[in-house]
């Protein structure tokens, strides 16, 4: 049986840059079970307010210490409440949830494309890929320098890191997808993984499909339950016959094969 909602102790809650936070929780069971690309539902309070958990992807999985960490951006009421947490507080957690990334064993080099806070789930993936001895390159884009958080940990793992900002305040002026085009021109990777805003994911998916490189993307959606019963977070997918079908981002995802996603709008 999976573990239902439990309460976990906050080990650390720190602001990395205005609007960006890292949260470390004591959660041995989750740390034991979690895979890169999975997420957890977090309830910042023990009361019925707010009622619903907030789906936040796992940023760190430390089995030895029995800890999991999350990197998030404050976007509304729930994340604002999370940001107020202090070490020693208890919060509600449910997870790990979702499918997670598939690690490609035959690829020698892989490219990770991150847009803004989309970098969060890619860190445990990078750690797992480096662990398998792969060459890993992180291509990280954001609107401006202030929104680039968390890339040092990738460099520490031995990943090559390239940065782009729309306003040119750090790295190359442009988009993460510009970095991807440059990278593909230099060396063809065996696999691409991406997480970020939808327009970026759509562009990455198109580039990967055109180049014939396998690509997995992690989608974000407003969720009710996080484990597949409320049908609140559906997205459009192609089935094996190419026909449109609905998939739950929380259950069949959040990671999907890029060529299976149907992009509306």
């Amino acid at each position: 049986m999976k573990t239902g909602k439990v309460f976990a102790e906050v080990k650390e809650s720190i602001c990395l840059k205005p609007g960006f936070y890292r949260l470390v929780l004591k959660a041995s069971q989750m740390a034991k079970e979690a895979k890169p690309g999975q997420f957890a539902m977090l309830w910042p309070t023990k009361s019925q307010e707010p009622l619903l958990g907030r789906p936040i992807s796992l940023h760190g999985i430390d089995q030895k210490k029995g800890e999991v960490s999350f990197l998030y951006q404050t976007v509304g009421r729930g994340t604002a409440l999370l940001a107020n947490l202090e070490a020693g507080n208890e919060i509600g957690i449910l997870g790990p949830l979702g499918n997670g990334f598939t690690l490609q064993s035959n690829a020698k080099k892989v490219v990770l494309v991150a847009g803004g806070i989309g970098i969060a789930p890619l860190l445990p993936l990078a750690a797992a890929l480096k662990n398998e001895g792969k060459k890993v390159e992180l291509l990280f884009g954001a609107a401006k320098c202030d929104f680039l958080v968390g890339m040092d940990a990738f460099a520490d793992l031995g990943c090559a890191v390239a940065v782009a900002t729309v306003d040119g305040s750090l790295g190359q002026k442009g988009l993460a997808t510009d970095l991807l085009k440059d990278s593909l021109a230099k060396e063809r990777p065996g696999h691409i993984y991406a997480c970020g805003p939808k327009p970026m994911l759509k562009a990455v998916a198109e580039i990967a499909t055109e180049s014939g490189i396998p690509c997995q993307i992690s989608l974000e959606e407003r969720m009710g339950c996080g484990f597949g019963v409320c049908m609140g977070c559906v997205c459009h997918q192609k089935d094996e016959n190419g026909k449109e079908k609905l998939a739950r981002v929380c259950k069949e995802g959040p990671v999907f094969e890029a060529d299976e996603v149907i992009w509306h709008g």
Partner: protein
Amino acid sequence: MVDLTVELAGLRLKNPVLLASGTCGYGRELSEYFDLASLGGIMVKGTTLRPRSGNITPRIAETPAGLLNSVGLQNPGVKKVIETEIPWLAKQGLGIIVNIAGESPADYAAMAETLDPVAGIDALEVNISCPNVEAGGLAFGTDAKVAADIISWVRAKTKLPVIAKLSPNVTDITEIARAVEAAGADIISLINTLQGMVIDVETGKPVLSRMMGGLSGPAVKPVAVRMVWQVYKAVKTPIIGMGGITTAADALEFIMAGAKAVAIGSATLTNPCAALNVAEGLAEWLVAKGVANINELVGIAHRG
């Protein structure tokens, strides 16, 4: 050992705690978290004659102590449910109640006829109260004559206990309750969601793609308890109460107001084990209070 078994018009349940339709799918996801056999039963996702893909997202909006949903009855259709879901559910050891929703009285009748002989099904819950569909749904459940018509169509096509699921979006809930009782409903379940809206002040637009949705969660509980109380006084038909139940104490409020069984809805979305916790909590409460049989509590709030 306390006795938690309840019997509603031939529907026997090992305890009075059910999973409410639309918050538990067909049970598979929740079975990963606890043994479904610990519950009295499951009211499966609203099922329609033909498959429905539901409404476009956003389908969910959080509200103070509650949430709005406008999923729009996404489901694989009755044929697929009979083929793939019921046989699996029938092995799980809990009562199976199939929630049916139609666009016309004939839809309901056709589904009742199709489901009647299917092994494993214990009752049909007639959803005349979904606020999130274009045709039928809420419109059926807010007109006493139409509601009664649909119940009698279903009644004529099945020997299974027929549960009428009422909408709270009416002026007088007892009028609808009397009408469905007279039309042959064996059991009444209430409440479905209350119609609501949330507007994003940054965009100036409703959050939900379909503008309006159904409100559920702790916020609706007092409304639901009040309606169970009123319906208990108005009809003889046994009641399944639901609306914002999160704890055993919440469930007891419904039972004391007159419900013989209760269903757990939105609370499941905030904890997959919510219904299990309510069932266990009820047993503990009875032991602590020295009540031998849960049925002793049904409707006690009405005693002078």
